[in-house]
Structures are given as C-alpha cells and as structure tokens.
C-alpha cells in the first residue's frame, strides 16, 4: 500500500488541547445519553425493533438490484428521473449537468453526508454556481470553510461566540449577536430570501422506498422542505444502500432514527417525496431527479462486512464513543467520524489513508450497544485490522513485534527466559517507589501517566509442584 496513513495523533493532540471543543464534547457526552434514555422509554422493545430493522436492511441489501429497479420504475412513472452513479466523479458530473440544464445560478442545499463525500459543493462552485447550505449547522461550517465534525450536529464544535463572529464577517450587517436566539433568527432571515431566489434545491435522503418510489427526508429545522418546495428543480443525492422495500418498513426505521440520533421520539419533519409536483398542484418542483451513488459501497455486498451498509447515519455510535468524545470529528480526517467512520471511511477512501480510523479504538463496544441496526462495529474494525495486517499496512517494526510476541508466548521456555530477564530490569528502572516514569517502548503510555512496575516473581512459574 502506497497511501500514507493520515495523521491521527496530531489531530488528536490539537483536539485534546482545545478547551472549547472539550467543553462542547463534555456537554454532549453527558447530555445525549439522558435524552436517548428518555426517548427509549416509549420504545421498551428496542432490542426487538432493532433486530427487525437489521433484518429489513439485510433483506434489502440482498435484493438491492431488484429493489433499486422497482424504485426507479416508480419514480419514472411519477415523472421523475433516477441516475445511478458508480463513482463520486460520475455523481458530481451528473448533478452539475442537471443544474446546468436548470440554468441554476443559485442552489440551496440541505444537509447530506453523501454530498460531503462527493465534495459536491466544490464541483458546483467550480461550474460557476453558488451553493448555500441551509441546515444551520452546515451553514455555520460553510461560512467557516470547515468540515462537519458530527454527522447529525455538524457544528457541534463551534461556540456561540464563534458563530456570532462568522455571521458578523459574512452578513456585514449590524445587529445584536449575543444570544443563541438572535443567531438562529438571523440565519432564518438571511436564508429565507435565498430559498425563494434559488433555481435548484438539493437534499439528501434517509430512505428510498421501492414500493412507492419515495425518498424520505428527515430534518428538525424544515430546511429540506423549503429546498424541496421552492426551487423549480429538486435533486435528491443519496447512496445506494438507502433502499428499503415498503412504507411499513419505513415505520420501523422511523421508530429508531430520531431516538438514536437526538433522543427525540420523532424529528419535526419527515418528508416523503415521490416525484415532481403532481397535476393541479400549485407548488413543488416541476423537475425531480434522484442521484444514487455507489462510491465503492458495492464492494461490500456479499462480504462478511456487508452489515456495515445497514447504517442509517443516526450518529448514535459516535455519541457514545469515548474516543470520538475525546478527539472530536475532525481528527478522523474524512467525511464520517466515530465508529461508523472507522469502518466506512477505509472502504470509501482507502485502507492505507484511513488506517488510524479503525486502529484507534479500545473495542469498548459502546457503539454496538446503541446502534439501531445492530452493526457489529468492533468486529468489522477488527476485520479491517486483519486485512491491513495482511496487506502489510502497519510498519515492519509493528509486525515484527507481534510476530516476536507470538513466537515467545508460544514457547514457555523462551517466555520464562524473557520474563526472567525483563521483570528485574523493569523493577530496577522503577526504583524504590515501584513506579516507571519513562520507558522507551511505551512512550505513549507515559503521556500523563506512570506505570506500576511488576511486583516481582511469577505465579505460573514460581509454583511448587
């Protein structure tokens, strides 16, 4: 593998040193579990429901071609167009082309992680169009020129003061920017006019329903709806694994999604769109497109790790992840942070580049406990480590050390010999207090920590027969 792993430790170091980020994460780490627990009270059979959800997804993935065809036929019968794109580049080209045909100058967009994955905004801007993110969090980070740090709360890492600064710099108006309330209002007013002035609205989709040719879009703010209703063209950009068979299946996912994502029983707006405006309707787009991206996902179909395509992007896994809650989203270095990123990023963006994503985990398993579609996240992380090891992505030193450990531990004679030599050395280094403060092979451990020295002697070996 020629790809150099993206530096994780450097990002982690910065994140750990940022007081504002740590404050935001700390608030989230205590707040989210309480909200989720409260919302789960009205879903006492969570285990049963999520098992059902996982089954629906497995069925859908197994029959993906058929269901996608069915979805496409329905959309076309409703007067819309479906574009299936194998690569990110295809998808970018397709969207830009649709926008050109719509003579778009201004585009309003609601949050979609798939479009982040495609770096769609860059492509549209390069084609001379103005793209405006309308989800408040996305809007904030768009102004800041950053990336989302969380898939549900993209601006989680920003303080109110930082937002006020951004608004001041970009809106160039004088107004009070002291409270969150004022900032929300300002964004509402600024964005309001843009919706009416845009020719194209782009949204993501949380689900595609084969039965009726319906894309389901879930938001709390209502911004996706304005992107849908007001411009003349609506483009849904989403990924291939979103297809599910029926509306009844949707009901199962709706019970899980908001509870998992934000600790709500239901998000404010769940919108089902199935085509352009109908005959006699006075509103809605006259042109409707769905762009379905593969982007490398189909590589997973039929493999042991296919379960990872069950993901409904709720973010619950990162919300309970102790690593995410320490280093924040940007440290992961690509679109999807947290446990889902740890397993998905390598597939979409390279096992070499994304090396640390699946290495930087303690396998604590908190993510699997909350995942609403029961993805075996730690198992897949371990699978990726195995794959990386086979592909020799870890350095020679690391591979040699593991080989050596297995060789020694498989041979009690050698093992005893090594222990007999090592333990006294460590004890001598530790001195009277019995505490090691530095150790060449364990520099990482010593960051803000010491190590108790071995107490001396052995159990297995030192026994009388």
């Amino acid at each position, binding site marked *: 593998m020629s790809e150099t792993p993206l530096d994780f430790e450097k990002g982690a170091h910065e994140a750990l040193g940022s007081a504002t980020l740590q404050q*935001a994460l700390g*608030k*989230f780490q205590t*707040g989210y579990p309480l909200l989720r627990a409260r919302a789960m009270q009205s879903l006492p059979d969570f285990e049963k429901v999520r098992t059902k959800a996982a089954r629906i997804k497995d069925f859908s993935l197994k029959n993906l071609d058929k269901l996608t065809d069915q979805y496409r036929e329905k959309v076309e019968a*409703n007067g819309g167009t479906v574009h299936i794109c194998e690569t990110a580049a295809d998808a970018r080209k397709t969207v830009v082309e649709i926008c050109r045909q719509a003579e778009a100058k201004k585009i309003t967009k609601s949050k979609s992680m798939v479009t982040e994955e495609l770096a769609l905004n860059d492509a549209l801007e390069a084609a001379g169009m103005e793209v405006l993110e*309308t*989800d*408040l*969090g996305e809007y904030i980070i768009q102004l800041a020129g950053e990336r989302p740090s969380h898939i549900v*709360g993209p*601006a*989680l890492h*920003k*303080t*109110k003061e930082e937002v006020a600064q951004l608004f001041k710099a970009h809106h160039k108006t004088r107004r009070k920017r002291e409270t*969150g309330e004022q*900032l*929300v*209002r300002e964004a*509402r007013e600024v*964005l*309001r*006019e843009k919706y*009416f002035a845009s020719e194209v609205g782009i949204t993501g989709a949380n689900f595609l329903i084969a039965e*009726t*040719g*319906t894309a389901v879009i879930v938001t*709390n*703010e*209502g*911004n996706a*709806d*304005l992107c849908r*209703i*007001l411009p003349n063209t609506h483009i849904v950009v989403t990924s291939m694994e979103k297809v599910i068979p*029926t*509306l*009844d299946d949707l*009901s199962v996912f*709706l019970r899980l999604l908001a509870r998992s994502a*934000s600790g*709500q*029983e*239901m*998000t*404010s*707006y*769940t*919108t*089902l*769109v*199935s085509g352009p*405006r*109908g*005959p*006699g*309707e*006075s*509103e*809605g787009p006259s042109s409707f497109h769905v762009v379905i991206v593969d982007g490398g996902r189909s590589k997973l179909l039929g493999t042991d790790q296919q379960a990872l395509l069950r993901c409904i992007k709720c973010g619950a896994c990162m919300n309970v992840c102790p690593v995410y809650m320490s280093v924040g989203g940007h440290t992961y270095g690509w679109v999807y942070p947290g446990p889902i990123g740890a397993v998905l990023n390598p597939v979409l963006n390279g096992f070499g580049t994304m090396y640390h994503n699946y290495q930087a985990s303690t396998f604590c398993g908190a993510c699997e406990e909350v995942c609403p579609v029961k993805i075996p996240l730690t198992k897949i992380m371990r699978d990726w480590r195995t794959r990386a090891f086979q592909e020799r992505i870890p350095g020679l030193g690391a591979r040699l050390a593991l080989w050596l450990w297995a060789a020694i531990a498989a041979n009690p004679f050698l093992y005893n010999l090594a222990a007999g030599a090592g333990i006294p050395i460590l004890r001598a280094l530790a001195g009277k207090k019995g505490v090691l403060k530095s150790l060449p092979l364990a520099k990482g451990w010593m960051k803000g920590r010491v190590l108790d020295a071995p107490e001396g002697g052995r159990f297995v070996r030192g026994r009388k027969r």
Partner: protein
Amino acid sequence: MKTRAETFAWNVKNQLGKVHRVASLEKVPALVRRLAEQLGLEPKAVVAAASDLKDLNWKGLEVEHRPAGIEDVLGISRAMAGIAETGTLVFASGKSNPPSLNFIPEYSIAIVRESELVDTSEEVWVILREKQPFPATINMVTGPSRTGDIEQTLFLGAHGPRELHVVMVKS
C-alpha cells in the same frame, strides 16, 4: 388507558406543539381570531383550500387560499391524518394543500378531525396507498421547527414555524 385522541394530544404537547380542542369546525375561525390576537398578529392568514375550510365563515379575518409567501406570518393547513403514537400530523400535497403553509409562516395552525386520528404510521400508509396518484409530497410534522446547532441548546423556529398549534376537531 388513554384514548387515541388523548394520546395524540399528549404527544403533540410532548413535542412542544400546542393543542386546542374544539367541538366542531365552525368554531375554528373564532379560535384563530383569538390566537392571532394573543400572539399579537394581524388578523390575516393563508389558509388551505380544503373544501371544509373554504366553506367556513372567516368573518373578522382576512384569509387567502393560496401557497404561502415570504410575507405570510400565519398559516392554516389541513392534515389528512394524525398519528397518536408520536403526535405527528400528516399532510398530502394536492390542489388544495400547498406544503408551504406548513413551513413558511412563523405561526402554523393545523386542523385535524379526531375521526382522522390513527394509532401508528402503518395505518397512514394504508390510507395513502389508496390515493392515485401517490401524492408528490407528504409532510409528516411533529411539533414546531427546531434546531440544536448552536451549543446544543434547543431553539424553536429554525426555518419553519416557531409555534405549531394543533386544532383537534371533535365532530
């Protein structure tokens, strides 16, 4: 055991919506007038062109039956169903029900008859499957618009309405 209507009402409130229960549709205009006054709004509204709303006597209110525009502050829409499980209103787009009514005005009033309430979304699908063609846009609305994007604090009225008033009509 709560009745379906009670469960629905409880869930609407739980989702930060406001609930009003009236005996009949004829009582709606007066309720709207009162609400507008309480909220300090002009007695003016854009109203869904659903036949049962169009036929009402809107005396004292300036009503127009059209999609909402940027200047509209009060919108009145007509739900096709309400889901008790989550306190969710369901709107199907069509000639008489422009979706913008639910999103553009800062104050949103939604009318639903108690007879139109169902327990779960699955029951809504049964009704929707009957509709030909399938509505281009179906809005499921649960409480007012909200955001938690600034320091994880909840603010209402992000892009859509800051207040959602659900009027449950008994008969």
